[in-house]
């Protein structure tokens, strides 16, 4: 259910199913570490913004609260968009690690966004909690340069081993070759 109890349909995509659960052990997303700042969202119940230090703890809490699988983990570089919407008490940094968790039993998704500073791009690895994020964290490392502490094999996964730079960073150019009769636009 949405924050105000209604089910929204946005763009033909039903919001989180309004199946309400009477299971006592099931955890509503707001109950997990309630002191962590949150934002409401049209499509998922909430976006949680834990601090780096509480990130692994929060993910572990969600896992024990019935979120069996991690759907997606990615990293975003906010170098050229610093003015994004964040709740109070969350300081914007250059990088963000975004984790989408999925609960099959409750048919719900939650999204966790962790701010990662540029000077010290280290974040805890979730491999011990969800082994499936192994490849996803390697990709975030390869493409954006986030270092996941505790990851057993943090090597490049998509680029060749001797590649320098992290392609999805905003200061890494597209690498466009000039094409005759078409001006080659520079990076954003």
């Amino acid at each position, binding site marked *: 259910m949405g924050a105000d109890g209604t089910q929204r349909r946005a763009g033909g995509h039903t919001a989180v199913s309004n199946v309400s659960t009477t299971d006592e052990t099931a955890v509503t997303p707001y109950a997990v570490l309630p002191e962590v700042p949150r934002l409401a969202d049209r499509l998922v119940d909430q976006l949680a913004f834990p601090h780096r230090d509480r990130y692994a703890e929060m993910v572990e809490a969600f896992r024990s609260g019935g979120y069996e699988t991690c759907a997606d983990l990615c990293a975003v570089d906010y170098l050229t968009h610093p003015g994004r919407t964040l709740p109070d008490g969350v300081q914007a940094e250059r990088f963000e690690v975004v984790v989408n968790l999925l609960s099959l039993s409750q048919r719900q998704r939650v999204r966790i966004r962790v701010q990662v500073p540029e000077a010290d791009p280290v974040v805890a690895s979730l491999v011990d909690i969800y082994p499936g994020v192994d490849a996803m964290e390697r990709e975030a490392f390869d493409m954006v340069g986030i270092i996941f502490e505790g990851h057993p094999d943090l090597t490049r996964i998509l*680029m*060749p081993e001797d*590649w320098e730079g992290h*392609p999805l960073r905003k200061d*890494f*150019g*597209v*690498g*466009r*070759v000039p*094409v005759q009769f078409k001006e080659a636009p520079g990076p954003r």
Partner: protein
Amino acid sequence: MGLEDLQHNFLTGKMEDLVKWARRNSVWPATFGLACCAIEMMSVGAADYDISRLGMEVFRASPRQADLMVVAGRVSQKMAPVLRQVYDQMMEPKWVISMGVCASTGGMFNNYAIVQGVDQIVPVDVYAPGCPPSPETLLHAILTLHEKIRTGEITRRPGTSIPAGEQATGGWVPTVPNAVRVATPR
């Protein structure tokens, strides 16, 4: 058997003709499908657009047994040395069809990750445009290649060094960047 075949003398002309006929009617492709174009290449090998009628349905897994490399799909930076290795493992005479726009020029992906044209790595005989080229386009490319074999030289292949005085015959030496040049003798 037109006049163009009577190159050296009329005796060897007939033999050259026979050799070229044999070569173009059993060009065996190597499996080098990379991306979406590979699916269209498989469609060409399947029932509706059958290349078995051209003698080509046997896609050889081993490049040593193949004559034709159809580079079907986008070639990424990581794949480029592998492409060159597979090409080098093929025995002469060998041909390359660059299938699709990504293989020909880099296609819609003009960025850091894709080699802008496979002819930067291997010499290409026929380019087949399209994204992906429909099977009919690939068939046309194959038939163009057959024409090229039929009317071409049997002793000289693209990529071999040509004496300066003979450049006019259209010999072409590709510039292979050192980074992907493999230490095998030409």
